[in-house]
């Protein structure tokens, strides 16, 4: 295991990207930081810039306007990094997949940018905070 992967697994720093969500996954992500779930005790820290992040928490359907920005954010994130697609919308477009403003599922956009990207999926509408913690734990164990 390389030093960077060890660092990532020990204490993943996450950056939250909303690319067109209904806000619910985002609230549940913030919920993770507050006293009941308090993921900082597990070493997970929310950071203010993708350049500091080990993982991207992507929520929402990836709208046409947000797609080029999502690519830019992924390019700015140091590698290795894990992309978490949180919620049905980020995975497939969910209930909004037939919408005219829907671009492509998040994983396709990221794969397009980097074919070797590490992508983890946390399904749910929205996934419960417990599910997000479990998802993060599984993804990190697989690295």
């Amino acid at each position: 295991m390389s030093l960077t992967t060890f660092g990532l697994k020990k204490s993943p720093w996450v950056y939250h990207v909303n690319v067109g969500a209904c806000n619910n996954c985002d609230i549940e992500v913030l919920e993770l930081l507050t006293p009941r779930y308090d993921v900082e005790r597990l070493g997970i820290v929310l950071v203010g810039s993708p350049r500091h992040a080990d993982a991207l928490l992507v929520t929402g359907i990836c709208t046409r306007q947000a797609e080029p920005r999502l690519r830019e954010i992924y390019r700015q994130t140091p590698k290795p990094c894990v992309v978490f697609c949180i919620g049905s919308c980020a995975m497939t477009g969910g209930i909004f997949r037939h919408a005219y403003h829907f671009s492509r599922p998040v994983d396709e956009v990221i794969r397009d940018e980097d074919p070797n990207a590490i992508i983890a999926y946390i399904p749910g509408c929205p996934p419960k905070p417990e599910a997000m913690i479990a998802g993060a734990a599984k993804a990190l164990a697989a690295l």
Partner: protein
Amino acid sequence: MSELKDATGADVESLVLARVLAALGGLVLEVEEQTPERGWIRVDPARIREASRILFEDLGGRLATVTGIEVRDGIDILYHWCLDADHYVATVKGLAQAPAMAIDSVGQDLPAADWIEREMHDLLGAEFTGHPDMRRLLLADDWPEGVHPLRRGFKVPKVDSEGKRETQEWAGAPDEAARKREFSRPRRPQPGRTLINIGPFHPLQEEAEFFQLYCEGETVVDMDVRLSYNHRGIEELSTRMTWDQVPFLVERVCGICSASHPWAYIRAVETLCGIQAPPRAEYLRTIVAELERLHSHMLWLGLAGHFLGYNTVWMWAWKYREPIMDILELITGSRIHYANNRIGGVRRDVSPDLYGEIRKAVDSIKAPLELITKAVIDDPVLHARLKGVGVLSYDEARRWGVTGPTARASGVPIDVRRDHPHGAYDEVEWQVITQTEGDVFAKAVVRCLESFESIKIVEQCLDQIPDGPVAAEVDHIPRGESCSNYEAPRGETFHYVRSDGGPGPVRHKIRAPSYVNIPSFRASCIGQQVADVTIILASVDPCYSCTERMARLVDAQTGRPMGTFQDMVRASRERTRRLRKEC
């Protein structure tokens, strides 16, 4: 149920409608009285500005929103005016005649119509003569010019369950040339001004939005916002669903208003069918909606504390909000998307065994809420930090058509729950909280005190809830149109539906509260210090997934981006720290 009446207004039943018709006089072409609270008036489209002036100034109306519908002769433009004191919604129709599809802009006189006219220009291709700023609002930069998704004949290729489109060649396919056109570019700052960009992605903004603040020194002199990052096209999606599927979709307009949007939609459909939900269903809807308001107000208090550098308030408010989330999960099955509302009633009954649990949860947050309220109202630093900051005056509040706590903090006493009675709100004792100052402090106070009212409402509902069925039978949805509203935690959400007797709506217009509250920044932020802007922006509890669906600061001389949102939050916190020492 509805009938056409002659234009003189002599035989309308409602006194309010008669008064509106008398004031409009010779402008009226046709009148339809749907229910004692809903009237539809067709006016001479050439004189739409005059009609709007009469409704706003002489009758004290509030422009809730404007709906555009493509009809045979052009685009029908529907101005929904709420006469809150009279419990009435009067819709004024004007036809934008094809082929020009043009009508005079109301937005040039009344800022409340500014965004919505831009939106109709995007989505329907209507032209508004005299509108000062017709740049894109909702569609992406690469959306081709001249393609309007709400026009008839617009088709989106099918998408499979993996999220793949069957073809990449369709009317709305990305057009790289459009990206470079004028409408997608931000305005350049004038010499001597600085442009500060906020967004589109920032950790403190849960959602993507892009604000641009034009500054002279530390003072904000102008603002701009670019939407579209969150635009999902729900209105178009809704017309491809059935009546019963739409509540699940509108629930996902916004995660924190997921009881409010379906309720507004369902009220509109129920008005159209002329059915009434059973009393038990109305009580159950009220309980869930008030629990949602409680958790939403606590969420805002926490975030406001976070912006000011009071992270303790954030952690506390979110910790004490948890019992409410638990109780919502217990009675609806989900922490957030409740899916308990349906046309005619509610989907699931709540067992009386759970009343005790609900009471216990609501009881458990009383003491912490009092503690937080006292901490907010009595703290000298917060007084120094929030009083007189971001004032939205009574007149401005009316002109921008703001709703909810934003309006009530400016002394506009509107609350859909009281003004347009429904649910169990007229059967329980509660008060509409208003303040007169219009500053950020007043907005915080309104939200704190309103939470106590919500607790009162829930408790009384539990005492009085009747037994009986929870849903009424619905045969079919007849032809016609209808509109309705509900007081979401952020303000009024307004829905308009139109039916052709088919399986789903042919037009569904959704206007979420933030859509009218966010543009009022132009009234409240201008002349303020950069350090105060974050909290002013946060004070209306903005919800961008609702609004669609951004600001940045730029150096006035060089045009280079100056600060990041983070710098601003830092400046905001430093100011709090400085004031704390002085106090």
